[in-house]
Structure formats: C-alpha cells, structure tokens
C-alpha cells in the first residue's frame, strides 16, 4: 500500500473513535451507573446548613433547620438548564404524594427563574436562590437538575443527578418516601 492511500482511512478512523465513545457510554448506562447515578458522599449525611433568600420578594428565607420533621425533596434547578424542563411536569406527582418540595434555584438570575416558573408552573413549596452556587458546593452539586430526598431527621437518603423521570419517581422516590414517613 502506498503512502498516498492513508488519507482515505481517516474517515473510518474518526468514525471508530466515535463508536468507541458511544459504546462505552451505552455500557455505562446499561450498568446503571451513568449518566444519572453517581454515588454521592452525601448519602446518609445530614443536610448541610444553609439559609437562602426566597426567589420571591416578601416570602420568608429558606432555612435548612425548617425542613426537618417532614420528608422533603430538595430539587436543584435553573432556568438555563434544558433537562430541567423534562423533569418539571413530573414534580407535581411528588407534591401530590405529600412530600415537601423545596427548590434551590442554582446559579440563575432570579428574574429568569421567575419567568421560567410562570411559563411552566410552580410546583415548589418554597424556593431559595443560590445565585453564586455557594450552597451548591456544600451539597456537592454536580450537574443540574439534581434531587435530594431528605428524611424526617434531616438526613440525605437518596441523590439523583439528572432529570427525574416518571419511572424514577414511581419506582424509587415514592416507595422510599413512603418508607421514610413511617
């Protein structure tokens, strides 16, 4: 084979590299460890202390102490985050099941977030704004959206990175919440 022939193999080489990435990613998904589930060091640890101003003027601050006593789902979201749109309609189901739903608006402009909620509806019981992402660091926020299920004692029992789907809610969140509220 002459040296001249190698450029013709460039396309297939690039393609095979891509296939490698795709295959690896699919295998990761198949093993259930990616992209949504990354074991969190925060599991079974108490909720970090935080005090966040409310997204809405005139509403009380959102304080970590106050979420104790009831099973709570803390949902980290932002208006700039596309997957948050996917998750959004399903949050109503969580509220319907009697779980307190607290939103943390992460690295977002409050006016953008309010507009976003106007458009899609506001299922949250309370929303704190974490403009600079400081509280996000304490929680170990990795990618938005993220959700943390907290038991009555204020301990994080479950964490999900990425959007909650109906399946996640029905198969994981709701059963776990029922167990925790006993």
């Amino acid at each position, binding site marked *: 084979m002459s040296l001249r022939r190698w450029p*013709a193999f460039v396309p297939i080489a690039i393609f095979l590299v891509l296939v490698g990435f795709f*295959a*690896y990613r*699919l295998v990761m998904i*198949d093993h259930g460890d*990616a*992209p949504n589930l990354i074991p969190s060091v925060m599991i079974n640890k108490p909720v970090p202390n935080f005090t966040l101003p409310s997204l809405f003027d005139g509403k009380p601050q959102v304080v970590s102490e106050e979420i104790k006593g009831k099973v709570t789902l803390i949902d980290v979201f932002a208006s700039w985050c*596309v*997957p948050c749109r996917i998750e959004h309609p399903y949050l109503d189901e969580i509220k319907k099941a009697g779980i307190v739903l607290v939103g943390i608006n992460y690295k977002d402009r409050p006016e953008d977030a309010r507009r976003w909620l106007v458009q899609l509806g506001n299922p949250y019981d309370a929303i704190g704004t974490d403009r600079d992402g400081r509280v996000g660091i304490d929680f170990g926020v990795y990618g938005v959206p993220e959700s943390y299920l907290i038991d009555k004692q204020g301990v994080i029992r479950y964490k999900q990175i990425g959007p909650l789907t109906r399946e996640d809610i029905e198969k994981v969140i709701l059963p776990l919440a029922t167990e925790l509220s006993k």
Partner: protein
Amino acid sequence: MIPEIGHYALILALFVALTQATFPMIRAARGNRAWMDMAGTASVAQFVLVTTAFGALMWCYVTSDFSVLNVAQNSHTNKPLIYKIAGVWSNHERSMLLWIFILGLYGLAMSLFGGNLPPSLRARALSVQAMISVGFILFILLTSNPFLRLDPVPTNGAGLNPLLQDPGLAFHPPFLYLGYVGFSMAFSFAIAALIEGRVDAAWARWVRPWTLVAWGFLTFGIAMGSWWAYYTLGWGGWWYWDPVENASFMPWLAGTALLHSSLVVERRDTLKAWTILLTIVAFSFSLLGTFLVRSGVLTSVHSFASDPSRGIFILGLLVAAIGGSMVLFAIRAPSLKGGGLFAVASRESSLLLNNVLMSVAAGSVLLGTLYPLFADVLKLGKVSVGPPFFNSVFVPLMVPVVIVMAIGPLLSWKRGDLKGALRRLKPAAIAAAVTAIITWSMSGGIGAGAALGLATWLFVGTMGELAHRLFPMRMTAVDFLRRVITIPRSFYGMTLAHLGVALVIIGITGSTAWKTEKVQVMHFGDTVKVASYDLTLKGVEEGVKGPNYVAARATFLVTKNGTFVAELHPERRMYDMPPRPTTNAAIHTNVIGDIYAVIGDPDESGGYVTRLYYNPLVPWIFIGAGIIALGGLVSLTDRRYRIGVPLRKVAMQPPQS
C-alpha cells in the same frame, strides 16, 4: 386482526428486502439481467408491504384500538382525529415505521425513475437501499414493535403530549424524515458506484436530483421545526442549538456541501472521492441523528423515551452501514482519478472553499453536540455546551461562506477572471459598506452592521448576476424573453437559494440585535409599550373549552400612536390527557416584525404575569428558509435532471438541425 396484518406485512417486507439486498448484488457481478431487474420488482413489493404495515397502525389509531400497546400509550379517544392520523412521529415505534415507509417510498421512486440508469448500477443501488431496509425493519421487529397487543385492554389511552398537538408539528417530522431518508438515495448510488469503481459525470447527474430532493425537504423540515418552536414554546426564540436540532442541522450542512461538490463532478469530472465521501457523511449524519435521539446517550428536550438496548442495536446498525461504507471508501477511493485541473480563481475553487467551510461547520457542530459525552466518558466532569460555543464558532465560519457565495457564481469553470468578477461586484460592495455604516451608526451595533452588510453584499451581488445574465448590453424585448427561457432553471434555483440565505441572515440579525422583551405583572386596563407599539390588557377569560383542554384566554389590544393595529389572544392551556400546561403565544406579524404576547399565571393581586416581545425581522428567517427550499425545487426542474423519459425520446429521434 388489523394489527396482525400489519405485523405480518412487516415481516414479509423484511424477507423481500433481504432478497432484494442479496441476489441483485451478487448477480449484477455476473451481468445477469433477469436477476438485476428483480430488484425493481422487489422494491415495489417492499413498498406495498411497508405501506400496509404503516396503514394498519394508522387504522389502530383512528379506531382507538387500545388493545395495541402503542396506541394505548400514546392516544386517547378525546384526541382530535387529525392528531390520531398525523401523530405518526409522536413516539419512537411509530416514527420508526414512518422512517421505513419513507425509505420504501424512495426505493419505489428509484425503481420507477431509474429506467435510464445502467442496469448494473441500478440493481446495486437498489440492493444497497434494501440493505438499509433490512437493518431498520429488523430494528423495529426486534426492539420496537408497534403491533404488540395489550391484555387486559385498558378503557382509554394515556394521550399525546399536548406540546405535540399542533398543526405545525404535524408536518415538521415527515418533512425532516423525507430529508434524512432522502440522503439514502445518494448514499446507495455512492456505494454502488464504489463497488463498480466508476464515478463520472453521468453518475453525478443521477445523484444530484435526489440530493436536491432530500436537501429541499430537510431545509423545509428544519424551518418548520424552528417555526413551531418559535410560536409554541413561548420563549420568543427560534433556535436553541439543542442536540436534536443539531442532529438535523449536521446532515443539512453536509448535504449543502454535497450539492455543491456534485456540481463539480458533473461539470468537471473532478473532486470525485471527496463527493463520494460527502454522500456517505450526509447519510451518516442522518443515521447518527436517529441514534442520538433514541439511545439516551445525550439529554435533550426532544428525546424519545430512550432505551439502551435500542441504542446498542442502532449503534450496531451504524457500525454496519457507516463503518462498512467507509471501509469500502478507504479501499476504493484512491483509485478514483480526478479529471480536470483548475486554477485558484475558478468556479471549482469557490465550490471547494464552500465545501471545506461547510465541513468544518458540520464538524464543529458535531464536536459541540458530542462534547458533553466525551467529557463524561473521559471523566472531565459534566458539562453542557450551549449557544455561546456554537455562536462563536459557527458565525465566523459563515462570514467567508457568504463572501464567496456572491463571487463564486461569477467565476467561470477551470480558470475564472477574479478581477472581472470583483469589478462586477462593485455595486454590491458599495451597497454593503453603506448598509453596514448606516446600521452601525444608527444602532451602535458593530456586529449587526457587519451582518447586514454581508447580507446586502450577497443580495445585491446575486441580483446583479441575475440582471447581468438577463440584460446584456444591447438587446430587444424578444432577446430578453428568449434569455428568460434559455437561462437554465438551475441558475434560477441557485439565485433563489442564495437570495434566501441573504434574507435568513437579515432575519437572524434583526431578531438578535433589536429584540425588545418586557416581562411584568399587568392588571386589566394596563398598557405596556413594546418597541413602538402599545399593548393593553383588556381582559382574561378563564375556562375557555377546547376539544381536549381548558384555556385561559387573554385579550390584548395593540395600538400604534393611538391607531388600532391588532387584537392578540394568547392562551394558557391545561390539557386533560395527559394533564399538562402549555402556553400558546399570540403573534401579530407585519412581515417587518412580530408582536409576540404570552400570558402567564395570575398573581395574588389579580394581575397576570405577561411577557411581551417585539421580534423584528423574525418572519424573514422563515420566508428566507422557504425561498432556499424553493430554490432547490426550481433547480430540480432543470432540463438536465428530467432524466428518464426525455433522454430516451431524444435518443430515439433522428437528430434535428
């Protein structure tokens, strides 16, 4: 019974496709005519069978047969009939059936219109087409069978996502698929030509019309999708660089490059290997889009319910189709000798430059789309690549594209007169400079000035060339009419497409640079000034009943300097099945710009949150895109592509003086 007929037809179609994929290919090598002709018959049979399957599922939807799992999951008795019929794209299984239905349609077209093709090329191309069918029918039957029954039968279905219940969306996906799948034609011809080892001007002449068809549909499909996003999603934007939008944009870029490079093969018998590669790449991007949307490797607002097992199957299909064709390319391409040489200043060079820039653009979109995946796999953290990346990479690439777009058509083949061309473009350059300076001084936006200057350059340059061709120095009215007729339709097509691009640039510039957005709480009687318009909230009527939703319907009075302009009725709808809110923006357009109103939730004081926009020039984006697609259509009617019957007639008639 009906679903079983559909299922059975699909299985039969698989076997017909298997036959069509193998025998003609093997026999073509031995020049066996009867076996080669069988490919044509098989493609007709395949089309009939696939249509039967497609129709059977549609029947199940129309009659709301909830014993079929797919219908129960995605339909509802209350769903308007139009969406029962048009919802072919609404879920993964049904849209795959649409995919192979369109593939069957193209296969049928190839066998019907391919009468004047060399028999062996036709047989091989039909064979390749059937191989694609085999892959996708297998995919449907093994992983995504839409005909599965459900027991016990539910009393009603789960309904269709209301965002998708929109007339604009009834047409967007079919056009998109006609575009995606259309590239399979050029692909099949490319593979057949690689097997035969012969790529020449005649080959390019067969391939180009099919590329034009696919590209035209894709252009139209993308524009429709963008328009749908603009008026239903209610955020006033029309393009988000979302992975799925990119998945449709990459084949478009590759297809655009292919259109231009196939011209070089046709006229000058050179750039062959490159053109073949582009046909493979264009179709590969189409397949890649299918994979990305359905496998769950990327997160997007558009994704279908994803399933890794499907992902693995499609990845296998990709490896077979793309990998196989690229290996074949690597083996055969070096033997494809280019013909004509050309100078730096020539039509060929300008088309080549277009190709390079389009490819780089497609590559950068691919990189941006897949970067989150690369980063995740390589443990670089979770990132999301957004509009800033795409805008900062894509926009600069398009600047030279637009500059050359006006110059290229003025250069002759082989060796062009660059100085002469630039002299003829002097009016365009002056107009561009004037526009840029006026825009800059009036709005203070240097980017907007440059963009509008570019658009003017392209528009005036293209119009100038049209005028140059139509009105030479001295001529009579008869001369003019003769010229109007004798100028090839492909020239008119190109002119339209290029003018369309100029309009799109103007629209994009206007909507990015001078958009006005006002968000506020309004009470009845309140007036907000948006750009030069006054919008007054007259009232909100709650509980307006639709076929399957309840809406809050607002009334805005739009006036300008006290005179009535329009009444707008944006709605906030709550659908009943599945219960989901949607916003329906109300838009009043006067072609120069859109007044765009969205109504939100009421607050405690009895006011309503409203979002009001003035989007200048946005209609130009969609009008421009429509003109681009129309350009493709006009080009398609060019004499030299009316292949088949006319060519044969000419051959049978004695030469005329």
